[in-house]
């Protein structure tokens, strides 16, 4: 399935602010992260959190084609 991923901050600088990934139908958050890690190669990017539909998700959270997936590098608000 084709999943759209939003990226921010250092991850957006490295890979763009929006990507479409081709993932197996039973993919989970950890598969998104592994696929992105492969694309980023040795860019030395910080380990991100992943949000699914604007909520922080765990590595085993399933992802669907209709989900809004976002890569959240370490936040630094305030």
């Amino acid at each position, binding site marked *: 399935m084709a999943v759209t991923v939003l990226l921010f901050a250092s991850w957006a600088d490295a890979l763009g602010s929006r990507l479409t990934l081709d993932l197996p139908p039973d993919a989970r958050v950890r598969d998104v992260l592994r696929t992105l890690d492969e694309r980023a190669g040795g860019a030395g990017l*910080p380990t991100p959190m992943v949000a699914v539909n604007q909520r922080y998700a765990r590595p085993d959270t399933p992802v669907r084609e209709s989900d809004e997936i976002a890569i959240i590098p370490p936040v630094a608000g305030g």
Partner: protein
Amino acid sequence: MRTAIVDRVLDPTALLAEVASPDSGASTLFVGTVRRLHEGREVTGIDYSAYRPMAERELADVVAEACERYGTAHLVVEHRLGTLGLGEASIVIAVSHARRASAMGAQKFVIEQVKARVPIWKREHYADGSREWVDPTRAAVSDADAAGIP
């Protein structure tokens, strides 16, 4: 209770007035500002950006949790995005409460939670012309806060 993520200059005085209440014995204001030095480097400005819809929801959640935990409805937070110069305010937290300990507790809770979970990022501009995303998870030992210095 109100939260906003905005693209304009913040007005701490207006937020302080917004939380005022005759049932409050204490009001507190927290203003986060762009600081000249960060880990020994001279900062000239900061770009703040966000995953805006999620940041708005997380910020609203943080404030709702603080209101419930500390028992007040008088809590307003605004966070600014965009490019800020030295000394400019990036966040203002205004709280009032019957009791001072709760006003101060809510203030601290909100800023800590914002820094932990609201998807906002900052890219610092340095005097040497370089720019860098701030990553608090690799904060250097120079971070006195983390070391528990008062």
